[in-house]
């Protein structure tokens, strides 16, 4: 479990990190929490020639909530999100749930939300959460910073819209209104495992008791986390009920295209996608005091 030789560069400012990345291009990888990258390097599955360590960039450790959004910096730890003062607010219940089941408590001390998005593991947690909550990633490129919507950001397994020499600085979650709640449902073989299947759900209600909008996404259901568009469309504008939930659940089953592995077979994972979306919707609605 010894990585191949690599050059280690510690950046002291974001500018310096960016300069390193520009200089080394595709040879370089950003080291944030390192909870996926380091194991991959130890197995020699990843062999970056250069590591750019951004852990000294304290101005990227922020977790900020204002009237419009929640912004999480590139080296804010999962554990910091888990313990954030706003996490108990119902409107953040999707993030609340996920923050408690990402990896295990030890990994969460170092692991980062942004790092997880950039890693884009097919069975990651934050990717599905970001889809359901319609987040955007702030990417620094040659022509300055740009916001990339999460649907565009997640390109393929272990591939994102962050280009060569670019770096992700943070993620921005739009502030949900106070008639919003979510739920993250994850099935794992043991604490710390990647999801066998997972569903991220976020629901906003109208005053008339109909659903204004819904975010529904799945993890471990394809090359990377996927949005269940069909479920989102059929939920919007409808009054919640068991039939509606079943329809959303069926849509999730159809959308899920997992791979068989030691965590489970294709039909089991597809089945779970449906079950977990239904459970997520029921829990989100229950949090809003809505009888489904």
């Amino acid at each position: 479990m010894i990585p191949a030789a690599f050059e280690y560069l510690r950046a002291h400012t974001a500018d310096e990190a960016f300069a390193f990345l520009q200089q080394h291009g595709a040879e370089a990888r950003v080291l944030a929490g390192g909870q996926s990258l380091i194991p991959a390097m130890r197995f020699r599955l990843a062999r970056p020639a250069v590591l750019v360590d951004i852990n000294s960039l304290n101005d990227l450790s922020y977790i900020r909530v204002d009237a419009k959004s929640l912004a999480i910096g590139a080296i804010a730890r999962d554990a910091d999100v888990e313990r954030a003062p706003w996490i108990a607010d119902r409107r953040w219940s999707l993030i609340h749930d996920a923050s408690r089941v990402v990896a295990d408590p030890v990994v969460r001390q170092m692991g980062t939300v942004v790092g997880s998005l950039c890693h884009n593991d097919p069975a990651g947690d934050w990717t599905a959460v970001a889809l359901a909550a319609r987040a955007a990633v702030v990417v620094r490129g040659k022509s300055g910073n740009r916001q990339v919507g999460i649907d565009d950001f997640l390109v393929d397994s272990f591939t994102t819209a962050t280009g060569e020499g670019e770096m992700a600085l943070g993620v921005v979650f739009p502030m949900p209104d106070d008639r919003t709640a979510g739920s993250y449902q994850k099935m794992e073989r043991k604490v710390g495992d990647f999801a066998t299947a997972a569903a991220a759900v976020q629901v906003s209600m109208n005053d008339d008791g109909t659903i204004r909008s819904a975010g529904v996404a799945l993890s471990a259901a394809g090359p990377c986390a996927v949005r269940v568009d069909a479920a989102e469309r059929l939920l919007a504008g409808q009054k919640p009920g068991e039939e509606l939930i079943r329809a959303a659940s069926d849509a999730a089953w159809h959308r899920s295209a997992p791979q068989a592995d030691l965590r489970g077979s294709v039909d089991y994972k597809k089945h779970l996608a449906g079950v977990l979306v239904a459970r997520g919707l029921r829990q989100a609605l229950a949090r809003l005091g809505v009888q489904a």
Partner: protein
Amino acid sequence: MSIQAKPLHSVGVPMKRKEDPRFIQGKGHYVDDLSFPGMLYLSLVRSTYPHAEIRSIDITEALKVPGVKAVITGKDLEAAGLGWLPTFHGFDKQMVLAIGKVLFQYQEVAAVFAETRAAAVDGAEAVQVDYAPLPVVADPFTSKADKVLLRPDRESKTNRIFHWEVGDKDGAARALASSARRIKQRVWFQRCHPAPLEPCGCVAYFDTMGRLQFHVTSQAPHVYRTALALVTGIAEDKIHVISPDLGGGFGNKVPVYPGYVCAIVGALKIGRPVKWIETRTENLTSTGFARDYHMDVEIGATADGRVTALRVATTADHGAFDAAADPSRYPAGIFGIVTGSYDFPVAYAEVDAFFTNKAPGGIAYRCSFRVTEASYAIERGMDILADELGIDAAELRRKNFIRKDQFPYPSALGFTYDSGDYHKTLDVALERIGYDALLKEQAEKRARGELMGIGLSTFTEVVGAGPSKHFDILGIRMFDSAEIRIHPTGAGIVRTGTKSQGQGHETTWAQIVAEELGLDAGAIMVEEGDTDTAPYGLGTYASRSTPVAGAAITMAARRIREKARKIAAHLLEAGEADVEWTDYRFQVKGVPARSVTMKEVAFAAYTNMAQNEPGLEATYYYDPPNMTYPNGAYVAVVDVDRETGEVKVRRFVAVDDCGTVINPMIVEGQIHGGLTEGFAMAFIQEIQYDAEGNNLSTNFTDYLVPTSLETPHWETAGTVTPSPHHPMGAKGVGESPNVGSPAAFVNAVVDALSPLGVRHIDMPMTRDKVWRAIRDAESTKG
């Protein structure tokens, strides 16, 4: 847990473990902590193919890697007469480095020695091996057909390693045929791995006297010394084996591995110390695995539930070499314990073992030589029989238990069970779990379609190998030993032939000495693992330490007491016959006022011994007259989620009877650990190979070890039925929970699903598998 009726002086006291402050503070001293001037690192090149001819090995590029000093291959070792290594029970041999072909994925192919660990790994990566793939035999049933001969090097041209049988074949067949009721079920105890947190490793060097100093992760240091002398031809006095602190073993650190031989050869060839520490992947893919027994269980019974016969036919997958470290006369270990806790009038068991293109091994993981497989088979079988007869599972067991007045009990398969009170142990468990209330709750839930299960396992273990007339490894009889020295101030040191890997010997052994001699257990040091200082012993595995070495300590302490009595007589100015050992001191018979403590006697042994021989030391080699037979009654309660197949272990009660308990806290800790492993095997653990022989379980993402977060809460209790032949009445306990618990979990889950018509699920009972069983049962029902 309160097992002992009344703590004595030191035995029965839940003394805190003396070794723990060192471990908790990170001050343990492990093999990988060692460093010597000029030390090189060894990394092994391993096969990427499960079965292939080696066309060529090109080491040119490897030798160019900066820091690489040497590369050796199987041909080099063969030339030195070290190409093959005998396996421990003596029926087979194993390639040290592949010669001509590879027989399993991750098999050792070449050894690279370098200045740093990183350079060694880089060098190993640079070795070019040209393989020509051969047809793969990935399971024992394919192997049986002998279409592909895996071991042409052997005299017998078949993949069958052995056929072993015990019992009355014809009698069992007749009794089964004439039984009113009978069941038959194939159960597979899947391939698992002990996965100690510290992997295997060693440091080897030859000192200025030309002596091999060998620091190694070994559960049996003396056996290693003798085996190394036999394999390498180095005189045994020129070999010093030291096993320092071990981070777990569970049987994984019993065999001698190719990496050890390579390290020694490298140290000899290059003349510098060599360290080899395997990676997690290497540990999981190439070292001693556990189980892989496919067992056809048949039980006959009368209509009212009296068992009439047992027959078990097993197909065993031993991998590429027969490296199951069984005692030499027991190729299938102590599988004959398969009649379990029940009074079978007749029984027959057979095991057929086969080579496959998988890693070798087969008896490890907290298991007294195949006892885990046997217990699982009989405890599943009894539940299936209960289901077949419509009799409550507890009732069926009660009806068939060996009664306490039948001990010593000769079993149909040749064991003499020493003691037990199975009815009482079960009663304690059922009372503790509230069995009747649970049955009522279950009936109500079933009416509502909810899936709740209750699973029992009332197992009997056989541990403490073993009596010299039956048990040996490489011909060495399986006694164990103790040497005790009491110092002038009443402190002392005890050394044994065993080797703790976390079992707490530093505390337990001190307590035995303190109990026997009336001394302070805190002032008795325990030393193990150094073959220069410890008396010869066979090591720690198969729950043998307390039954064998614990007995040796007791007997050595009693020898000291006899010598001390002479000195006490001198101090008390009494005749030796008038001095009695009472209340942990010597006194003149009937005159409590005239007494001396052992501490006073110890001082006198060095200062005022009169005509007696100075000093206070004794050694004892203990040859156990019989095995010991711990038993237990376990109850698991589970709730199954119909929608997802998720199983929640709501409660688990474990009642163990391991005879006299020396340290109840350590015993409870052992039970917690073993139950956690049983839980793991039942639900999440399997070394999986695909049909092409590729190992899929190569790290802790794919071979799961439970953490405290998913492990159920364990409720423990005990009964005490002392062993009549062990000098302290102790039986051994380390393995009981691992042996007994898998069946309780499976019985509980199958019980939960039984209303759907499910009769059996093989381990590990993953959610996918449970969900599939529910779905299939529901679709069959329509």
